[in-house]
């Protein structure tokens, strides 16, 4: 069986990551990986919940060496943990802080004596390309989380393809990410890009604008900021003084041309975007201010039959139907024309109305209920969901408390409106216009 190296660095003394107390070399990283691999308990699946990006990287690779598969759910709710444990009883949660893991088997990230030290002759491990390296989860339209299985060969290829598309293969930048490393975009653009694009990364996950400025200042140029439209607009609005940035990268939700132009004017850096999905991996990139067309990453193909577009080839696992409406252009380029109506994207977190409605109607005492996304305010703002619920005897607060265990906070209805009945039509469907009318009547916020 063929294998691919854990990482593509040619020089073992090259810098692999930057932490608060300075750089760690590729050698130092490999030493930590081997040390952790010896200590990890025997389990088939690793739920790597490390907050620190470097510790995540050590845990992921140590798991690979032990033949473990990394489980990467889209949320950390108690309901998600229960489901994971049901499905993968042979899992262990790797934690580096005060994460509440309910009753999951748990392993604390140990103090590795080797951290920062270098071993003289470490060699780069090779991993079989067909090894199941990770399972990323999406919330499927059936209401059940869908497991997206990723083999090592495809993940490594994704990292390489992104590096080439962004021009980093010849000119590596230091990556500073505001997104979690466990979710697909952060996983690809701060971890796989580090392993197979040769880009060192900042171990922290800066949150406030001032934190982002401090993290950038802590690493040398050239620097690449891996962020989202929401974090980026907060950063620009705060008006903090920013260290030099050489490339800006955004994904998870469409970026407006206005925000892209403002970001470029403020930083002098090109504002690049990545298009992809957890199911397909990363598919395309563009510089937002150059126009609406996307260019496919090397090796990837899109095929269309009727309304449906399928991604395949390159680092895509199998044939993946896409949930966006796409217009193909010559020379491996395409345009995006919105997404199918059931899908919800709030500040880059994705789910479907079907999933949310399933969770809502599963709350004991709820007779009927439906989530509703009001018309969005602006491409870079955050619009919150509303829910209309029929639940005699329950208060909105009680229902919200139960929902909080089942769905992520960002999808919680704001507000949750109790009603006597939902405006279902004769076929049982809820026309959007009727929900919109109900929204204006009961919520409104001064809208006409």
């Amino acid at each position, binding site marked *: 069986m063929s294998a691919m190296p854990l990482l593509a660095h040619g020089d073992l003394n090259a810098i692999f990551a930057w932490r608060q107390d300075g750089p760690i070399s590729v050698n130092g990283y490999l030493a930590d990986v081997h040390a952790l691999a010896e200590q990890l308990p025997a389990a088939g699946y690793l739920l790597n919940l490390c907050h620190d990006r470097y510790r995540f990287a050590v845990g992921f690779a140590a798991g690979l060496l032990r033949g473990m598969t990394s489980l990467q759910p889209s949320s950390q709710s108690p309901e998600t943990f229960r489901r994971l444990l049901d499905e993968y009883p042979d899992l262990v949660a790797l934690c580096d802080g005060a994460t509440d893991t309910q009753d999951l088997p748990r392993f604390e990230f140990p103090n590795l004596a080797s951290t920062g030290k270098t071993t003289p002759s470490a060699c780069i491990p090779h991993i079989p390309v067909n090894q199941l390296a990770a399972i990323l989860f999406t919330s499927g339209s059936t209401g059940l989380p869908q497991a997206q299985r990723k083999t090592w060969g495809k993940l490594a290829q994704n990292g390489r393809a992104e590096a080439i598309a962004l021009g980093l293969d010849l000119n590596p930048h230091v990556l500073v990410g505001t997104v979690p490393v466990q979710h697909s975009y952060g996983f690809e653009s701060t971890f796989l890009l580090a392993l197979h694009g040769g880009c060192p990364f900042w171990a922290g996950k800066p*949150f*406030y604008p*001032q934190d982002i400025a401090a993290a950038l200042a802590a690493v040398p140029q050239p620097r690449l900021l891996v962020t989202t439209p*929401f974090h980026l607009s907060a950063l620009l*609005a*705060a008006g903090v003084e920013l260290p030099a940035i050489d490339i800006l990268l955004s994904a998870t939700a469409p970026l407006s041309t206005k925000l892209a132009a403002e970001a470029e004017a403020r930083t002098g850096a090109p504002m690049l975007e990545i298009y992809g999905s957890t199911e397909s991996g990363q598919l395309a990139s563009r510089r937002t201010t150059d126009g609406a067309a996307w260019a496919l990453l090397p090796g990837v193909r899109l095929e269309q039959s009727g309304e449906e577009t399928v991604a395949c080839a390159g680092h895509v696992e199998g044939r993946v139907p896409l949930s966006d409406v796409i217009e193909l252009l010559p020379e491996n380029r395409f345009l995006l024309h919105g997404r199918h109506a059931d899908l919800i994207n*709030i500040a880059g977190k994705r789910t479907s109305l079907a999933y949310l409605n399933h969770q809502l109607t599963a709350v004991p005492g709820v007779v009927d209920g439906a989530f509703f996304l009001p018309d969005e305010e602006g491409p870079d703002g955050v619009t919150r969901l509303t829910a209309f619920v029929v639940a005699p005897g329950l208060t909105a607060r009680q229902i919200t408390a139960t929902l909080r265990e089942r769905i992520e906070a960002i999808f919680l209805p704001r507000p949750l409106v109790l009603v006597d009945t939902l405006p279902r039509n004769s076929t049982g469907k809820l026309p959007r216009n009727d929900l919109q009318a109900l929204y204006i009547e009961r919520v409104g*916020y001064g809208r006409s």
Partner: protein
Amino acid sequence: MSQAAIETLLPEVAELIVSALNLDIGPDEIEPDAPLFGDGLGLDSIDVLEIALVISKKYGFQLKSDNEDNVRIFSSLRALTTYIATQRSK
């Protein structure tokens, strides 16, 4: 910073949270010592960034999370108000 000054500032910060987040409750419905996250007001990290932005504009300082105080600062309306009172430059 005196307790009286913090008491005076509480309604102002409550109003700021409600208007920044478009919450469908009145500012006086936020209990000063109830948690802002989880079982209390149910805020999330998107809200925290929104609040941080209006705080920086109104009170003239930037929030940072490089210390362990971050969780404590947002633990309740009173904790947030106290922090603003000690950090504000305008």
